[in-house]
């Protein structure tokens, strides 16, 4: 056991699964050092360095650089999965998924259903999400809510390095297409991560912090915003329970509902979207199934309904903050 960053934890998960199972391959842009390159050991490791060094261990047959063609990456991964490989495709920004919706939404997500369960599609798509990197409107979105709404896809968004490793291993071993969302601002966040392999089951929320006065459900980096708010509020005598669902599909509804039954108040902190996002989805779930437990309105803390601004002050104002969460909860409990 040692402290590892999310980047290191993901790299270790990939190496351990590739060592365990010869069917696991990686493909994407620059994952091996650039298309047409020799793929040396100190390869570039993808735009965010997650696959660094993997080609040195497993060779160019299993770590494949692709052309800059998102639809080709996803189509190749879906086809490879249908033939029995376990591809882990990397797409550097979720924002670019628009050009490969057919491969993901209409092909990979549908294979098992349309072939009557006679085929499996064990592919993983790793991609990055999140504002705060000054990368402007086309490289900063958090589109996990769109994938969550498509049946046949599993959606995973770790908030810490322990979860990142265990969830990626589970994703690779899963027989369905899994979209794995990595927040760009969390890559260097470290915590204790076992050196051994382990898998965290999907659909099991992590109760990050126990509390009795109000429930916060938060995703990916927003878990840390929620925790910061919970610490501030604890000093004021307000006890906050913070739930990190870890996967939005499948979703651990029970943990969320149990918590709201206990606290009576729900705040959802979600960077995905102000409209039709995960916050709205969780709010709908709780209104439908735990209405009698609610003692106040459900608060959705999301960015405004606008593209992510490039202006740094505006981008900072766009992302939900711990201050906003605290203010909302103080008002709610008054």
């Amino acid at each position, binding site marked *: 056991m040692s402290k590892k960053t999310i980047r290191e934890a993901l790299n270790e998960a990939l190496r351990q699964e590739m060592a365990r199972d010869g069917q696991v391959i990686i493909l994407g842009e620059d994952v091996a050092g650039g298309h047409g390159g020799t793929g040396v050991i100190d390869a570039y490791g993808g735009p965010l360095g997650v696959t660094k060094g993997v080609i040195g261990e497993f060779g160019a047959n299993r770590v494949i650089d692709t052309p800059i063609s998102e639809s080709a990456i996803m189509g190749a991964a879906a086809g490879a999965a249908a033939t029995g490989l376990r591809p882990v495709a990397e797409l550097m920004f979720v924002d670019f998924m628009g050009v490969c919706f057919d491969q993901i939404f209409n092909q990979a997500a549908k294979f098992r259903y349309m072939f009557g369960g006679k085929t499996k599609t064990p592919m993983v798509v790793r991609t990055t999400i999140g504002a705060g990197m000054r990368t402007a409107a086309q490289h900063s979105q958090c589109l996990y809510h769109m994938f969550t709404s498509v049946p046949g896809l599993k959606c995973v968004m770790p908030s810490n390095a*322990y979860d990142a490793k265990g969830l990626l291993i589970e994703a690779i071993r899963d027989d369905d297409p899994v979209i794995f969302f990595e927040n760009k601002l969390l890559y260097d966040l470290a915590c204790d991560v*076992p050196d051994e*392999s382990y898998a965290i*089951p999907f659909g*099991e929320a992590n*109760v990050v912090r126990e509390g009795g006065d109000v429930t916060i459900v938060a995703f990916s980096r927003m878990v840390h915003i929620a925790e910061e708010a919970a610490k501030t509020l604890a000093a004021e005598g307000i006890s906050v329970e913070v739930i990190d669902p870890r996967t939005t599909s499948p979703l651990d509804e029970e*943990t969320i509902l149990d918590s709201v039954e206990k606290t009576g108040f729900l705040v959802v902190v979600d960077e995905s979207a102000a409209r039709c996002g995960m916050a709205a989805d969780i709010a709908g779930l709780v209104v439908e199934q735990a209405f009698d437990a609610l003692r106040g309105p459900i608060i959705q803390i999301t960015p405004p309904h606008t593209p992510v601004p490039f202006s740094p002050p505006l981008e900072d104002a766009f992302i939900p903050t711990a201050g906003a969460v605290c203010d909302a909860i103080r008002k709610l409990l008054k």
Partner: protein
Amino acid sequence: MTIKAITVPKWGLSMDEGELIEWHIAPGDEVTVGQEIAEIETSKIAGPVEAAVAGKVRRIIAEEGEVLPVGALMAVLAEDSDTDADIDAFIAEFEVQDVSDDMGEDAGAADIRHITLGDMDISYQDFSPADLSPGSVPVVLIHGFGGDSNNWLFNQGKIGETHRVIALDLPGHGLSTKKITDGSIAGLSAMVAEFLAALDIEQAHLVGHSMGAAVAVQCALAGNIQVASLSLICPALVGRSVNPGYISGFQQARTRKQLKPVLAMLFSNAQLVTRELVDDVLKYKRLDGVGDALRVIADKGLGAGELPLAEQTLMMPVSIIWGDNDKIINGTESHHIKAENCHEYVIENAGHMPHMENAGAVNKILTDLFND
């Protein structure tokens, strides 16, 4: 000067801080040695702080809810004749000492060691007092099914005052190799003997908990090491049945919600099962190979027919320690242990983990036996 410090105790090697949950004393109270004066919660478990010194409480330093490093000053005891100025000076000086005191994470981490036995990697915690008397026989702690060396959190420190104390992780457990080929009690006992031989230990006091006690008994019966004394805490022995609901529940639980009530069965006071304890066990159970290892042991080692049955009389001193509210191993039948010199103890307000729930009482029984 009669001013004395009450400090945060160190419960085992892995503890470096604790949260003060509750004070049971107030300024003006008279405290006796061994009195439970506060409740502290660590990342593993909550437990009572027993006063190591006696006197009148003059100053409470630590506040409830505060997270304190091991060794931090919690309260000050003094006589009426000591002035407030003397006490202030004592506190000021203590804080300086505390900073220079090296009881940080590194000290504990350095004591987790590994040894290779064939294709197995065995992890163990090894601690010796600085003034270990020559010829002193080491104490070896063997945890139970699904446990690990951290179960001895509250015992290592006390035993370690006078003896070298080694707590190992059995294969399939803790930080040791998860792959396990022979999960029978005989197999585990042979592995413990091999482990001690690799450490050049010929003779040891064996302390076993639950399934670990069966392993210890098997070591004594097989005679593959010299057992100086045998301490059996809630032992899994022929005659007393192991709650099958616990064994299967522990193996099957995949979520916190499923695991918590299973772990609660271990304790008399279910409140002791903290969120962190449940998380730690879940993290262990998720490791590749653990599910298989537990199955191999449950099928083999804990099947009643596999538990050691003492045909021969054990010649070394034997202590058997039960909890009065054990929900895992209970019953009043004879335990089939034949020993020349055997004492049985029942610890009050303790479940299957008396060495955690009432560590003070268990530590006294153990150290009395070792020092006899």
